[in-house]
């Protein structure tokens, strides 16, 4: 299982703030999870239509598509940050 959080326009396009998802075998990285969400439904296809515009964190640390995922991870997807 992974807890997945969405922020800013990714949250709007996904229509949810978070979800808990079993990680299917074969989904071993952030990039793999993005591919899964793209294919799952129209919301995922829209939210991840341009993966270059999406940033990710795993367990509250910035991650890349190659970052490995493990059972119990907290994964977040969001646009490039704009604080300060």
């Amino acid at each position, binding site marked *: 299982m992974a807890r997945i*959080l969405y*922020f*800013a*326009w990714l949250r709007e396009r996904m229509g949810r703030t978070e979800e808990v998802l079993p990680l299917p075998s074969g989904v071993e990285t952030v990039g793999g999870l993005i591919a899964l969400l793209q294919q799952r439904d129209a919301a995922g296809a829209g939210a991840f239509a341009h993966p270059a515009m999406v940033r990710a*964190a795993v367990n*509250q*640390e*910035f991650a890349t598509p190659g970052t490995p995922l493990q059972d119990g991870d907290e994964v*977040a997807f*969001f*646009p*490039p*940050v*704009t*604080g*300060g």
Partner: protein
Amino acid sequence: MATVRVQTPAFDTGAELAALLAGRTDVGGIGCFVGVVRGTAGGQPILSMTLEHYPGMTERALTAIAAEAEARWELQGCTVIHRHGRLLPGEPIVLVLTASAHRQAALDATAFLIDWLKTRAPFWKHEEMAEGGPRWVEAHSGDDAAAARWDTMKL
């Protein structure tokens, strides 16, 4: 050593500055930056700005950024306070304070903190425009460049 807070209410810059100095006589200079909501975006008036953030990761990221500043410069204190929620034009968003024996360390650490914070702290700005729908603020390539200056400095 650093003070890091993420909060909705306004901060009191004078009180935070006094707290950095309280009971000590080894500080020679305090650098400070206050970020403020501008009333326009791309030339268009805005009604408000709402800051969304990632609770938990935000505090962790700000703490890591402050620790990096304390590793790079000899600081006697460092305060980072970032607001979230709905803010109006003219309202302060973020406070960075650094105390050091020497002014250049305080000034450099202040610039570093705000540059890194802009590219490494999980906040997202949403603007309510006077005309037209609300919009998410896009990240600046200039902010990436400003943050990248520090990659090759002081290491």
